[in-house]
């Protein structure tokens, strides 16, 4: 109970802090408009209305991922700049319980990106998004958010040790768009890429959202998405102590 309370309040606090950044807010407004516009123009050329819905949903999840990968990367760097990272490490709670809400807060910001992309598609490009299975769609979205947030947490743990690791977060943004099938089906990618895609929760989250929207069966994808999310959390918790020990040994916590 205490753990859940800590995660819940940590999420609220981090979300409040992130949403008060004018720079981050500006990006959060810009991303969905930019992603949506590019995707809709690309797929409009094909003249297939189904492809536009495919692109619309893909662009929406792109927003979630971009918000998470960028913010998870920079959030701990920001803690360093603020001088609060050492205070978080010096707190008696397990560091993973302090950082997990950071990942969840970043993916929550992605919800706005998702809604804004869908609205942009509807208002500017006239794409009517009909959801065949609203309940499963409603289940697929939080499953995707949670698992993407867990992936953000895993990325963030690394930042406690490596102060330049924020660049990795930014670097992972575009490859994941492709590898997880946000804009193009995985079947078009080389075979060797697929095992990497399967290890990434956004792949399953994306499938689940599309399947729920088009009336296919999304439950297996939702389960896989949640399973991978849980695995990220377990790995993150297990490596946290080792990462922190290395950071304390190398004195990298206070470096900016």
């Amino acid at each position, binding site marked *: 109970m*205490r753990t859940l*309370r*800590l995660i819940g*309040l*940590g999420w609220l*606090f981090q979300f*409040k*802090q992130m949403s*008060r*950044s004018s720079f981050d807010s500006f990006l959060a407004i810009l991303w969905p408009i930019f992603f949506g516009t590019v995707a809709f123009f690309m797929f409009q050329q094909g003249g297939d209305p189904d492809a536009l819905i495919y692109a619309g949903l893909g662009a929406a999840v792109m927003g979630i991922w971009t918000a998470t990968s960028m913010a998870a990367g920079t959030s701990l760097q920001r803690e360093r700049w*603020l*001088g*609060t990272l*050492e*205070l*978080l*490490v*010096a*707190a*008696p*709670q*397990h560091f993973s319980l*302090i950082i997990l809400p950071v990942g969840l807060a970043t993916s929550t910001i992605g919800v706005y990106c998702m809604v804004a992309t869908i609205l942009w598609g509807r208002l500017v490009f006239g794409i009517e998004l009909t959801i065949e299975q609203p309940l499963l769609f409603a289940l697929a979205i939080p499953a995707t958010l949670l698992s993407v947030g867990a992936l953000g947490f895993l990325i963030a743990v690394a930042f406690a040790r490596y102060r330049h690791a924020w660049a990795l977060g930014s670097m992972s943004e575009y490859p994941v768009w492709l590898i997880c099938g946000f804009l193009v089906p995985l079947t078009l990618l080389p075979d060797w890429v697929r095992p990497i895609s399967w290890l990434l929760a956004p792949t399953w989250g994306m499938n689940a959202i599309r399947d729920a929207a088009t009336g296919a069966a999304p439950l297996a994808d939702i389960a896989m998405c949640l399973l991978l999310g849980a695995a990220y959390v377990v790995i993150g918790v297990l490596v946290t102590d080792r990462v922190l*020990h290395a950071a*304390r*040994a*190398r*004195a990298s*916590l*206070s470096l900016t």
Partner: protein
Amino acid sequence: MAVVEALDLHRTYRTSTGTLRRKWKNVEAVRGVSFEIQEGELFGLLGPNGAGKTTTIKMLITLLIPTKGTARVLGHDVVRDAREVRKNIGYVFGGERGVYERLSGYDNLRYFAELYGVPPKEIRPRIESLLQLVGLKGREQERTEGYSRGMKQRLHIARGLLHDPPVVFLDEPTIGLDPVGARELRATIASLADAGKTILLTTHYMFEADALCDRIAVINRGEIVAEGTPADLKRGVAEGTVVEVEVFGIPEQTVERVRELSGVVAVSVEEREQAQALIVQTQADVELTQSILGQLDGANVGRISRREPTLEDAYVSLVSAEE
């Protein structure tokens, strides 16, 4: 049993220079520091910038792992039982960093109360009483980005005391504060000591250490060079005399010449608005005023005075002896 024990603590940093051809170098920041702090004691760690004060404190609060040696807080090893140590300590550092600027002072305290495991029912009354203690009542709902340096510092103190820790580490808490703010903060620190907290205070303000600390260790270049009560340390230089000469623009070579005079224990220069004060500690049985003035040929000399040594002179003497 001592509340805080440092036994032969060492800490080496590895730094590099250059970009393509990196040259690595080991810097020994702390070299065999040992001391003990008893329950309820206010212990001062004094030293110049770069002496190893913050590195020592960071090893004690589990943020750095010692390269060699051990340390215990309330019997818990700072490396092996880091979590137990963290439950029992509060950490406050000086300066403006360490607060979430986009959030209110109350939100900052609320978040850290959760991280420090304060029972939910106690959080609100604890924050209220700490806001009263540090004089931030009425300003707690404002974003901290609008706080003055002193207000941020007082917020730090409140944060460090949220979980009512028995041991408090204060790392240069009054640095950069205006005189009134610093005096108020010193009063708060004194009240913590009166409340029975065990406190380790690092500072390079002598009068602060003199006024607050039960015992002091002087650290220089990573080593403890003296330890005792403020009176003990002053006694170490009580035999001597201090000559203060006001000068207007004194070159470093002149200071070196004064330092080399026979009977001189230590020399320091203090900036005082347009002038400098050349402070020369001499042995008790020598009269060096004329010799000192003789070395200042060409310099514009103002007021000259002789006085008894203070704790600051003891400190300068200790630190200079190591150079």
